[in-house]
């Protein structure tokens, strides 16, 4: 278990997720749920650098196997289109060629890039679809996390800027206005994969819930899964849930420092990179942001916004969320006295299941 004390006083570099002792987010059913437990099946696959878990309701084993196959093939298809780590992906092709001139792409790829650009614009660039070079220079992409040299950081920063990407919807083209720009859909493609799988299974009438790396979740049948809860954990002690959220027809996404981060000389460095190149999560008045959870109508939006809301912090994030009226967010800060929740439009009917850990008000 990682303590607040250790976060502030640690020296040398260590991994915050080393102390992980249970799932980041956990799903649970309330006792009065109508769905018989024996009809729920679960199977997982590794993709996009994480684990996708698919819960589905099917009494038929043969049909369930076919559903898993269709779902995991859909994830693979999306990874093959959007991964910047695969040389043969469409995004890699765009990254190689879009500075040379307008690049034609297919409608699906164009639409997701357009959506990412729209979110980039609405969040003032705190979600930035071109942040890849910064992620790389910090070593998060290659799992070789390090504090970059100032010059390398400055050079990487030069290659970031969603405004340097030009889309032409009339012709479905993407063009970069500057050499070195590259698209990085890592903070949105996972959510898009969840949405796409839910759509595939909705078409065949199979109720399902998908959990991507415990950070993005959505169900395709609000009625069947209405009693399912997602436990948002205490970022300092995962065994203690802070909040139970009923998913209903919403998508949920959580971003935080407890995964893919490291502590060096008392500072936390997170894989969530500020567009100016800063990796440390926002802190103000002695309060350190540890985690943010976003509820949104779809998983694509929730995934992208959880990154942006983490980098923006509560105050700026709440303002930014005015442009996303159907979304809500819950930030969890810590200070010397414990945890402090901050919320924007957080649903009132959700249970705060472990109030004792907070010393502030949401």
């Amino acid at each position, binding site marked *: 278990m990682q303590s607040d004390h250790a976060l502030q006083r640690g020296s040398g570099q260590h991994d915050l997720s080393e102390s992980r002792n249970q799932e980041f987010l956990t799903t649970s059913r309330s006792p009065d749920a109508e769905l018989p437990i024996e009809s729920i099946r679960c199977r997982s696959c590794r993709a996009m650098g994480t684990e996708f878990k698919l819960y589905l309701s099917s009494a038929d084993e043969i049909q369930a196997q076919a559903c898993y196959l269709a779902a995991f093939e859909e994830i693979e298809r999306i990874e093959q289109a959007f991964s910047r780590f695969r040389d043969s992906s469409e995004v890699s092709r765009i990254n190689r060629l879009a500075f040379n001139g307008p690049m034609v792409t*297919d409608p699906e790829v164009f639409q997701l890039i357009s959506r990412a650009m729209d979110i980039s614009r609405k969040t003032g660039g705190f979600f930035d679809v071109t942040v890849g070079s910064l992620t790389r220079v910090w070593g998060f992409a290659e799992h070789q996390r390090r504090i970059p040299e100032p010059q390398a950081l400055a050079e990487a920063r030069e290659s970031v800027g969603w405004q340097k990407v030009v889309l032409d919807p*009339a012709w479905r083209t993407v063009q970069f206005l500057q050499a070195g720009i590259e698209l990085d859909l890592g903070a949105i493609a996972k959510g898009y994969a969840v949405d796409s799988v839910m759509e595939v299974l909705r078409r065949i009438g199979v109720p399902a819930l998908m959990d991507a790396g415990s950070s993005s979740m959505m169900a395709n049948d609000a009625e069947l899964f209405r009693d399912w809860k997602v436990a948002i954990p205490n970022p300092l002690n995962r065994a203690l849930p802070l909040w139970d959220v009923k998913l209903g027809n919403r998508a949920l996404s959580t971003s935080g420092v407890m995964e893919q981060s490291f502590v060096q000389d008392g500072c936390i460095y997170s894989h969530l990179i500020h567009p100016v190149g800063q990796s440390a999560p926002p802190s103000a008045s002695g309060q350190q942001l540890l985690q943010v959870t976003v509820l949104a109508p779809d998983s694509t939006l929730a995934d992208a916004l959880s990154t942006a809301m983490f980098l923006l912090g509560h105050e700026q994030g709440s303002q930014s969320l005015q442009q996303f009226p159907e979304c809500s967010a819950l930030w969890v800060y810590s200070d010397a006295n414990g945890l402090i929740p901050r919320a924007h439009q957080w649903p009132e009917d959700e249970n705060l299941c472990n109030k004792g850990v907070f010393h502030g008000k949401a």
Partner: protein
Amino acid sequence: MERREFIGLAAAGLGAISLGMKGCNPHNVAPGDWVNLAVIGVGSRGQQMMRMMLRVPGVRITGLCDIYEPRFEQGRKVTGEQTPVYKDYRKMLEAHDIDAVMVTTPVGLHAEHICAALDSGRAVYGEKSMGRSLADCNQIRDTARRTGKIFQTGLQYAYAPWTQEALQRIQQGKIGKVTAIHAYWHRNNNWRRPVPQGQEAQLERLLNWRLYREWSGGLLAELGSHQMSIANTIFGSLPESAIASGGIDFWKDGREIEDNVHSTLRYPGGQTLQVSYITTNRLDGAQERIYGTAGSIVLTHTEAIYYKEPWEPNSAIPPEINIEHKLITGPTYSAEQPYHGSGDTPIKGKVDDANLLACRAFIDCIRNHRRPIADVEAGWSQGVTVALANRALELDRKVTMAEFLR
């Protein structure tokens, strides 16, 4: 091709309206070079290939045909517009705004759809396997020859630079004489598509056509096509015989198609292709292991890896032998253990998806009146090889190509 140029111009005009075209054309394609593509079979493979085609500048999809209506909405989602839809491919082929047709229907329907499209005067991209039977393959080859229209078989790995580079090395003798190829396509799933709840009785055979004999060529056709095509290219001929075995041994769910198939094909030069398709383990994935007397090549969907045979070059005779004429005896120190050298991957990364390469090549052939690499003869060779192995599987005995072609 005046007709095509006229249609292309007309299509570009239509595009200007429906796409809200403005300014110059960033596709950098002359109006006469726009290709309007119609699709017969809008299932998962059809949709995947449509996305690839739409990444090629100057391509529009102007018709979608399927007998399963939910595919229309899915197909239009892929095209991003209200593409005209048809339940009868003959009606679609009557439309004027079609330059080329992509056939992505079940294998057993390829001949009917491909030949109709060729006869309508269009260039055709036909998915593999070219046909399910010898008669199917002959019909397609004869129609393509008669009409003179461009036909490209869906052998996309023939367009992958790592495959082309490997074939070139083999041709140059870099791995010596190729004597054997072991090809695997191992997966661990039931190879099923989910069927909408409550409609299993009506839709099972339509959506899971690969599992039933009516339209399917089984694992040999679905998985073996690429590998047999590569073997035929390397060995420079059709196989002279095949044996095969397989069964429904694990997924006993009512399917008619074997869930595991193994086949050995012998070639006139004394070479062997051994293929293995299982659905219960994916350790080996999909690969072709090409064995030559001086080295090996492992081909996968993403790369080619080269291994030299582990022989040291001639070395100087050690002094103790030259001077004392003495050898030292002892237990055998080297057995026939597999060697795992580091391998060499000269073609790495920075290459496009093989499907996209194949689509781009097809469009290029239409624009420049060129013959595809995976042309009708390559398709026929591949299709007939699959059909031969399937015949051996069906008869459970060795079948020679001579008797099969009679």
